[in-house]
Structures are given as C-alpha cells and as structure tokens.
C-alpha cells in the first residue's frame, strides 16, 4: 500500500519540481518566474488541443512519444521512493530499466528523423552520441554499487538497513558517484551545460529541437515523460546523499523531498551561472563522470 501511495505521490509531484528550476533562474534574473502550477496548466492545455502532423511522418512519429513515456513511467514503478520498497523489483532490474530507457530514446530519435527536418536530425545525432557516453557512466556506477553491496536492483540499493548512503563507511567512494550521477543527470535531461532548453536558436539545441513537430497530447506525453526522468535522477542522487533517517514515513518523506528540491535548486543555480558548453567539449564533460566512477571502482580493489 505504502509502495503504491509513494509511487502515486511521485507521479503527481513530478510536474511541480521543474518549476523550482525556473523560479531560481527567474530569481537570478530579477524576475518573478511562472506560477507554481504552470506545468499542470500546460498539460491541461496540451491535452485539450489537437495535433498537426507533418506529411513526411509515418506511424513511427506517433509511436515515439508513447514509447518514451511508457519507459519513463516504468522506471518510476521500480524506484524506491523515500526508501519504501517499490511496486516491482527483481535482482537485475537496473540493467533492464536502463535498457528500456534506451528503447524510449531510440524511438524519440526515430520520431525526430521521421520528420525529414535537418534540425531534428541534428538534435537526434547529438542525443544518440551523448547518451552512449552517459550510459557508459551509468554502468560504471552499477559496477561500483555491485562491488559495494552485491546488489543489482534499486530496491536492494536503497531499501532496508544496509543501504548505500554517503554517511556510511564507503561514503568517500559514493561522493565520486554523486558527482558522476549529477553530470549524467544534466546530460540525460538536456540541462545546461550540455544542452540549453531555453535557447532561441534551434541549431544549438539537442532535446528541444527533436520535438519541434510534436503538438497537443503527443507533446504532453513527451513533457511528462521528461519530468519523470528528471525526478528519477534527482531521487537517485537524493537516496545517496539524504542524511536523515526517521522512523516516521511522513517525516522521512518530507526530508526526502526537501533534498530533491535542493537538487533542483542546484540545477537552477548551475543554469543561471554557467553557459552551455561548445558541442565538442560536451563529450569530455560527460567522460569526466565515467572516469570518476571508474576511479572509484579501482579504489574498491584496495579497500574491500
């Protein structure tokens, strides 16, 4: 019961958090920022609308948003929110989940290429390349986690008494993981300094340019899917760094989401004070994360 409630809570809250980023950025710019419920309004607006389809597209274009949404939703089903056992879980699920995310990305890319637009093709090529590097980092993280705990699922990482946490004996190694995961989060969710979702020029975008031709409920599915994905990554990092562990679920939840909010704030700060990297620097930025974690894994040889 708790599992289902925590899952529903996460799904419902996912659209709320990205506003934190927008508010922080607005604060830096001396503006007010959008209302807190802006994303809910956006979804309601998009769902009311119809769509315009390009004459170049086929059924793959319509399948793209559906597959990527389903993959992100499935991810949330397997994640232990606030340390509560997730609805589904099995030994080895992390491998399958990250591959299912790959499936979602595969269809997003195909949908972009289906429009015959040179801009969307450009975005697709970048997304495909950068995600290869990010995936390598993720699997480095999984190697380190297996080395530390012998587990291969989110539930085993974060539920119960022997969980992975920065405060534990191996905290120093996890610090490297946290930095790496933060870089992966920025990459996978198309945030500055990898991608700038708010830029005015299509040539410099990655994710946003791929969905130029989507509209109406299709666009709503894509947006919700990307909020789920961002929430997942920040909850992943939160589970690692959250120092509070109370007996009460509600108090725990409050602390958990407070840390999640903190991570969104840091994203906002990063976006406000840095510019997007040049495209040829981005691979080096992402590779930094895998090198950090690989260093961590090698260190385990000495300690364990």
């Amino acid at each position: 019961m708790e599992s289902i409630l925590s899952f529903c809570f996460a799904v419902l809250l996912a659209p709320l958090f990205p506003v934190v980023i927008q508010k922080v950025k607005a604060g830096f710019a001396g503006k007010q920022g959008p209302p807190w419920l802006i994303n809910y309004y956006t979804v309601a607006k998009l769902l009311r609308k119809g769509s315009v389809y390009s004459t170049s597209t086929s059924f793959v274009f319509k399948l793209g948003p559906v597959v990527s949404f389903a993959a992100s939703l499935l991810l949330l089903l397997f994640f232990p929110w606030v340390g509560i056992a997730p609805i589904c879980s099995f030994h080895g699920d992390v491998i399958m989940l990250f591959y299912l995310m790959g499936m979602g990305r595969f269809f997003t890319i195909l949908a972009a290429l289906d429009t015959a637009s040179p801009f969307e093709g450009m975005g697709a090529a970048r997304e495909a390349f950068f995600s290869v590097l990010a995936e390598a980092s993720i699997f480095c993280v999984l190697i380190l986690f297996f080395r530390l705990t012998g587990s291969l699922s989110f539930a085993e990482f974060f539920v119960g008494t022997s969980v992975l946490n920065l405060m534990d004996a191996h905290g120093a190694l996890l610090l490297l993981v946290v930095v790496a995961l933060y870089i992966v989060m920025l990459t996978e969710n198309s945030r500055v300094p990898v991608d700038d979702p708010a830029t005015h020029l299509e040539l410099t975008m990655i994710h946003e340019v791929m969905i130029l031709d989507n509209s109406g409920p299709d666009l709503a599915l894509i947006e919700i899917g990307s909020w789920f994905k961002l929430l997942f990554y920040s909850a992943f990092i939160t589970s690692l760094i959250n120092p509070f562990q109370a007996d009460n679920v509600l108090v725990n939840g409050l602390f958990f989401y407070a840390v999640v909010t903190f991570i969104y704030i840091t994203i906002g700060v990063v976006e406000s004070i840095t510019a997007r990297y040049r495209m040829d620097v981005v691979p080096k930025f992402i590779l930094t994360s895998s090198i950090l974690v690989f260093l961590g894994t090698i260190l385990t040889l000495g300690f364990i």
Partner: protein
Amino acid sequence: MDTLFVALALILAGGVAGLCLARQFTFMKLVTIATTSVGCGIGLVFTLPRLLSGVAVPAVSYRWLHIFTLSFNVDSIALFFLLPIFLISPLALLYSFNYLENREKKIRVGVNYFFFAVLVASMALVVMATNMITFILAWEVMSLSSFFLVIYDYQVKANRQAGYLYFIFAQGGAMFIFAAFALVYSHSASFDFAGFAAIDDFTKLIAFLLILIGCGSKAGILPLHIWLPYAHPAAPSHVSAVMSGVMIKIGIYGIVRFYLLLAPTAVIFGQITIALGILSGILGVVYALGQHDIKRLLAYHSVENIGIILLGLGVGMLGAASGNKTMAAFGFAGGLLHVLNHSLFKSLLFMGAGAVIQQTGTAMIDRLGGLLKKMPLTGKCFLVGSISISGLPPFNGFISEFLIYYGAFYGLSLSGVSFIFSALVIISLAIIGGLAATCFSKVVGIVFLGEPRDVSVPSASEAGSSMVLAQVVLAVTCFVIGVWPDYLVRAAFHASRAIPVIADFEVTRVMPIMVNVSRTAALFLFLLVVVTVVRKLFYVAKDSSQAGTWGCGFTQPTVRMQYTGTSYADSVLDFFRPFVKIQKKYAGINNIFPEGVSYDTHTEDIFASGLNRFIARPITSLLERLHWIQHGNIHLYIGYIVLTIMVLLCFL
C-alpha cells in the same frame, strides 16, 4: 543419428534437384525449396526435443578410403548450433523464391541452389564431426561452397575480387586449423578429438591461439574480419543472410568446441577471448557507423555481434577458470543464446536490405529515404530487427545481452585482473549497445523514415510475398523470444552444461530471473497499450491536420537538406578518430557563381589498409620476383613435380 543423416540427404537432394531441373525455372525453385526445407524441418524435429530434454545421442563412425575414420556425434553444444542452421536456411530459401527472379540466369540460379544445399549440409557436418579428418573435410566443403555462393554475380569485377578475398581468408584460416591439428597430432598420434585434452598447458595455449586465428577468420573476429564487408555486399541477400547469420557462427562453434576439448584451466584463455571480444565489439560497430552501403554496414555489425558473443564466452571461460559457477554458466549461456539471436535478427536485416536494394536499385543509405511508406511490411520487420540487434527490450537481443551482463556482474567479486576484465566487459557492452542503437537509428531513420533523399532513385513498392513472409516469421520470432525467453534460455543453459565446471549447474536457479524479465517486458507492453489507448481517447473528436514539416522559419526546404547518414555518424566517428580514418573530399565554392560542388567521404578501416600495406603488398612484390618460375612450359612443370617427389622421398 540416422534421422539427421536422412535430413542432410534430403537437403542435398534438394540441391541436386536445383541443378537437374534448372530449365524449368519456377518448378525447379519450388522443388528445391520444398525438399531442402523438409530436410531442415526433419533436422529441427530431431534437434529441439533432445536439446530441451538432454537425452544423449549415440555416436556413429564410418571408414573412409580404408585408412580414415569419419565419426559423428552430437552433444548438447552441437545440438544448439544445429538449431540456427536448420532454422534460418529454410527461411532464406523461402525468401529466395521471389528474390532470385531473373529467368535469364536460370542455370546460375540452379547452381546457386546446389551450393546453398551443400553449404547447409556441410555446416551441419562440421558441427557433428568428432575427429580431425571429418571436421576439416566438412570445414573445407563449407568454405568452398560459400565461395561459389559469394561469386554468384561473377561478371562484376568487384564481386570476383570480393570472392578471392574471402577465398584467401577461408583457406588461410584453414591453414591455421591444420596447424593446430598437426600440433595436437604430434602429441597424441591420433586423429581423434580426445587427444586434445592430453597435451601440456603451454601447447594447449598455442593450439588455442591457432584455433582462434583459424576459426576467427571464419567468424570475422577483428582484425580477421576484412573479408566480411566485401563478401556480403557481393553475395545475393539470401546468401548473406545465411553466411552472416549462420556460417560465421560455425567459426564460433569451432572456438567453443576446441575450448571444450582442450579443457584449459588457466584464466588467460578467458582473458584473450574477452580482449578480442572488446576489440571486435566496439570497433565493429564504430566502422559500421561509418559505412554508406547498407550491406557493408550490416557486415560490420556481424563483427560487432561476434564481439558480443566472444564477450559472453570469455566471461564463461574466466568464470570456469576461477571457479565462479554463476559467472561461468551465465557467460556461456549468454554467448550461446546470442549466437541464435544474432542468426535470427541478422538474417532478418540482410533480407530487408536485399528487398530495399532489389526495389530501389541502390544500396547507398544516403540516397534513400521514406521507404516505410512504400514498403510497409519490410520496413516494420526491419524496425523490429534493428531494435533486436540494438539489444533493446522487449526483443530477443536484450535477453542474451542481459545474461552476459549478469555473468559479468558476478565476475566483479573476483579480485585483481579478472575483476578489471569483468568491469571492462560491462562497460564495453554498454558502449556497444549504445553505439548499435545509434547505428540502427541511423539506418532506420535515414532509409525508411523521412523523405527520399535522391529523386533519381526509382520509386519502390513492397517486396514479393515470399520475401515478406520470411521476414515476418523472423520478426515475430525475435519478439516472441524477447517476451517469452524461457525455452531458449533453458536450452542455452542445457547446452552450456557440456562445460565440465558447470555440469551440475541448476537451471532452476535461472528461471526466476527470466520470469521477472519477461514479466517486466509484459508490463512495459501493457503500459504501451494503455498509453496508446489513452492517447487515442484524447484525440477523439479532434481535428488532426496535415502540414509540411516546420522548417524553423525557412520556407523553401528541399529533401536534399535532410540529415544524412554521413552527417548523423560524423561526431561519433570523430570521437574514435585514431581507429577510424575518414577521408573527406570537398570541392567547395570558389567562384561568385558556384558550380560543381561535391562532397565525398570514405571511412577507412585501419586493419584493412594495414593488412594491405604491411602484408599483402610485400607478399605480392616478393612473388612478382619469382614470376620467372611460371613460364608456361609444360615439360619443365613436369620436371618440378619429379623434383618435388624426389626431395620428399629423401625425408621418408
């Protein structure tokens, strides 16, 4: 065992019928395809139940030429490798019914069917062989028959060259197998395979390396893969499907078989295999990304998948050598299952590529586009094949990669170098998976989606019904294995029990994991259906209109402006630059009124150019100096023979 020989006899009879009836074109095709397929069907009926039940089959042997013995046996590994042979071949033949439609070349088509049947039978015989003579005989017949299949269009010069290249690699590889056999024979003085286990550890390593080179040149392990990207575009597509899907796996079979026979205990065997797997896997897919010809691209993907199979086998060997049973069982089972999975989706992709080339007359990816609308079924099947080969769930490629991952993760509990190798396997698998997805999003996205990029390419229509049927069967199989992997995973684990270390590994330990994987796949499909329905509901009673693609403000877009495969892959290739040389020729805009602008890229395979520069050219220049021996004077030739015999007599 007799059932298997009956099956092989039927397959050969189908081939002979192709030769005899070549004048009645359609009738010949029907008879050949039906007879050969029945033979393969009997083979499947024999193979499948024994694979799942694990009942032993008695060995048989025959005397040949009074002094040699031909002996045959099928253990669980052999049964597993028979599966793709009997499964893919009839489908490729079915595909060929509409694919080989040129009535003017009917004799040639008949000959093609004959050699096809010989290839299928000889592949089965290689797998069944249990002594050196039988193995090498079947191996040579396999190489020669596939050589004749490659040069089907022998009037084209490039195809003949591709054929010769393949011939050199096949025969050169066979030399190394001969060398390995000679090495073992010198220790055991017996042609029987049992002699392999009796030799000392160092000789075992040498023999294994020789086998790796010999079988590796057939399997297409980097850097012995050079014939693949030439032979596959030259061969007809149903032949490429069987050669890439099945025949190169016989090379893998050789590696597994001789690993088993040598029964080594050192970790170095696993480490070598893993290192080769990483090299083939990553560079195979990187080279694939750089290709412009769709069949060359698929050929490089065979190199990549051979790499994945080697990673699985290497994990298994490492696990077996270090006593880690979970690692060993999952590694071997994953590698073996990937053999079968790859044979399914790779033959599917080659068939799709063949249909595209037949319909459009070009294999150049950058000239195509928008074919999904014109060839809907071929396009959908190609999409399924692409997802499967990228290892994405819920399709079959994921299942075998998952098993290899699982084994490699359990290898992380080892210490020292073995740990590093396990970690490298995981990271390379992740990179290979990502790059394969990149490469196949390129192929599907450029060839089947968007708009046609070159207006001069003739308009295509759906391929012939037998071609489509073969592809649909393969696509459905890929999906079914992805969602219900139980039977084949069990078969793969049964097969890998031939390895002594994991002979007592309980398959029941694996099944709960597979149940969870298939449940997750089902859950994903359920979510897909629910989301699709919900999406449909939101579109009820709304007007969805059609318009041109949003050109970001540009009002005069043309199809030539679309992203091409070359531009799509450019940044990834740039990243791997030391290994991939891209030659760009750009005749740019020089005058006020630009004319004749051209842009041309070519991705150079550093192994092919290295081989050309450091091995092929020195050998040819050396041989040219010996040219005077070949003067065409028959008397002196007879003199050579007499001289050789005299010299040889001195040694006796």
